């Protein structure tokens, strides 16, 4: 337990003030870092000057020993910004979290600082393509020992964590609430896996439920922990774009996975690309951007890779190759894929491609190219 009393007190204050922050927050989300950069007194003054007593009284009763005990009981390690283990990537920012709560492999933070981590973020309502891209990027990056940072939300975030875990690689989830609290609750399983095979991080006190403002607050930590932030899918105004703008403010790299110009889910990444973000088509694009071209190759047969090597696609019999090409152009429905051929043949062919690992099926039953 390496946290000083002051930092624990600050964390407790954040918990106490959370509802006030919620109320005070204006539509302009960019002011959140400024709010979080205020000192304890300024923060109380700014948020609840008229009802100071409501915060002062419980704060006066705050007992650091008790906070330490409850964190320990939840299996949480607390690292404050005065501790040597506190990641340097975060330390110099004005709004850096006072203390980080860690469950899992705490050494991952140092690795992220040393080797450079990659944040993979995107829509909760991702398409099968987005899920597949997030999963494969994370899998290949983690296989190269690059920690994958994300937020454990539905969709892209979970796919990124799952991909990294599938490769047995490092992955860090930055939680919007307490580090011990699985959020969203539907991801309890993933949370358990992250606690044992990865790391769950949060600046919030133990057991705190997330507020709306906790999500952009969490996003700033994700952006700060990573050397590069990749947006896989997201509509205009999506939370992942907030993460990207935090990354830009910190001077970190931003990458985006290109999508179809007409798809609303591709609007976010495509805008980032037009503003100069790095094009991310595969993990090697990311590795080249981080470590220089060709410095770190993706393992030929990525650990846990789902699809066979692309070169094998050329050896497929013509019927299957044509089908695969159709799937690659983004046609997901049998109706579209069977165009010009017999429906029965198309269905049988798609199953063969599935047996070979070239295609998979999304939750809606659509076919998607696995990468």
């Amino acid at each position, binding site marked *: 337990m390496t946290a000083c009393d002051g930092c624990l007190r600050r964390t407790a204050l954040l918990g106490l003030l959370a509802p006030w922050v919620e109320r005070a927050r204006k539509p302009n989300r960019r002011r959140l870092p400024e709010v979080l950069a205020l000192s304890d007194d300024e923060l109380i003054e700014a948020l609840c000057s008229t009802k100071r007593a409501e915060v002062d009284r419980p704060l006066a009763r705050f007992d650091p020993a008790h906070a330490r005990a409850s964190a320990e009981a939840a299996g949480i390690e607390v690292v404050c910004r005065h501790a040597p283990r506190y990641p340097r990537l975060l330390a110099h920012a004005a709004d850096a979290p006072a203390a980080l709560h860690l469950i899992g492999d705490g050494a991952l933070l140092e690795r992220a600082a040393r080797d450079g981590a990659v944040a993979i973020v995107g829509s909760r309502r991702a398409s099968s393509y987005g899920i597949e891209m997030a999963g494969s990027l994370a899998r290949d990056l983690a296989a190269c020992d690059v920690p994958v940072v994300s937020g454990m939300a539905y969709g892209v975030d979970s796919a990124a964590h799952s991909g990294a875990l599938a490769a047995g690689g490092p992955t860090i989830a930055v939680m919007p609430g307490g580090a011990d609290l699985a959020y969203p609750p539907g991801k309890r399983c993933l949370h358990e896996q992250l606690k044992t095979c990865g790391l769950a991080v949060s600046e919030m006190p133990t057991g705190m439920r997330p507020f709306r403002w906790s999500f952009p607050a969490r996003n700033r930590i994700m952006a700060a922990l990573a050397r590069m932030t990749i947006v896989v899918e997201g509509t205009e105004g999506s939370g992942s774009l907030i993460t990207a703008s935090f990354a830009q403010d910190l001077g970190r790299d931003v990458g985006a996975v290109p999508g179809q110009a007409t798809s609303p889910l591709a609007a976010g990444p495509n805008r980032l690309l037009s503003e100069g973000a790095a094009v991310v088509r595969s993990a090697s694009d990311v590795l080249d951007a981080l470590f220089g071209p060709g410095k770190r190759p993706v393992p030929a047969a990525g650990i846990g890779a789902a699809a066979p090597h692309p070169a094998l696609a050329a050896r497929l019999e013509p019927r299957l190759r044509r089908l695969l090409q159709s799937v690659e152009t983004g046609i997901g429905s049998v109706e579209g894929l069977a165009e010009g051929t017999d429906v029965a043949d198309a269905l049988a062919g798609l199953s063969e491609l599935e*047996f070979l690992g070239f295609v998979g099926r999304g*939750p809606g039953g659509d076919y998607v190219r696995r990468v």
Partner: protein
Amino acid sequence: MLARATTFTLLGIDGIRVTVEADIHTGLPSFTIVGLGDAAVQESRERVRAALVNSGFDFPLKRITVNLAPADLRKAGPAFDLALAAGLLAASGQAPPDRLAGHAFCGELGLDGSVRRVRGAIAMADAAATAGCEGIVVPPDNAGEAALVGGLDVVPVGTVRELAAFLAGDGPPVAERLDARDWLAADPPEGEDFAQLRGHRALKHALEVAAAGNHNVLMMGPPGSGKSMAARRLPSIMPPLSFGDALEVTRIHSVAGVLGPAPLVQRRPFRAPHHSISAPGLVGGGGPPSPGEASLAQHGVLFLDELSEFARPALEALRQPLEEGCVRVTRAQRTVSFPARFLLAAATNPCPCGYQGDPRRQCCCHPSVAARYRARLSGPLLDRIDMILRVEQPRAKDVMAEAEPEGSRTIRERVLAARAVQERRLRGSPAACNAHMTHAQLRRVANLEPAARAALHDAHERAGLTMRGHDRVLRVARTLADLDGSDRVLRRHVAQAVAYREPPPVLDGAVAGMLV
């Protein structure tokens, strides 16, 4: 004076013989009915009294007691009216009792003396024939269906006067016995045809397979993509009803009171209950037990649109008919069994908004909501559905295409050929089609070529096929081979059948096979 008349009450879809004993004695004028009759039976006193008086007969101002035997059987409904009137006419000496002995009487009376149609006349006529009655007297509206039963005269009477005339020895002629066999042979009316369904090649092909093997199907797709339209046309590609099956369906429909103007159900029924239906409404129940939608769909199609919206108890109740082909309604006194063997065609949106996986529209459901929506379908019901299809919004160019799509007749030819193969193979077993085969039967007849066996193995290894999905794939593959005219199940049959399995769950936002 005492008179006895025979009538029938319904228990499930069977007629049970009831003897109406009418006794008229001197005493204070009264009219009592004993023998566990429900409210409709008690009220028949008023109907019979008015009908007799308004038809110009005397209603005896004496002490009248009517007993319905057997006295321990609960009796319901207005179908005893006619037997009651016949008994009273005989007991009061206004009609000779001779013809009461050999005939059964079923019908409801109006206050003006007219005779109205009743439910289940065909079941009563059948029971009368079995009981050795010489004839049955029925309302004119029921004469057609009653005449489907051979072995007894059917006498339609429209009024109490005609009834009295019949008892006196003259009266209306016996209804002509319908030779339903000729009638059924005429091609059933083809109201809805697959030719009207444009685009949807994959869907039509899948429904052809479903009809060929009688496989239950679930269609998943966005609203307005044509799921209901396709399901409605499913009976048109299924084999025509056999005479025996048509009689059985007619009987169920007659008992439920949904028989149309035609006395015989000629086409396979298509039932599409709304998703607000209760469990008893779906599988039958109530007191006295009456058949539910599942039984009304006997030998036909039960279409459940918006499957995820159905109440869980209702869907759970479907398990028995899906497994056993019948519904047993158990009441304190006795258990009634209704046949319910149907092809289940269900449709659902992939998520509450319906656009998940749609390339042209963004789904607006929260992932956890979408996951819960899908989770409602999981479990034992899905185990009984052999084919799950993704239905797409048809594209404009398919809808506008000039070429006329294949019609139901052409498709039905192929279905009939595949069914003939199955019947030959399954001769002598209770199953008549691939969907009804038991696990052991399936193993025996599968006849997989080695490459097909390998494909099944691949499906387990690479495509996440589960053990419970195994049999379903095998069943559908067998039907595909039958449609192909192939004795062996080939690799492509297995591969195609694998494509009809359940898509991966929504939860955890990961594609199948990925660790979550």
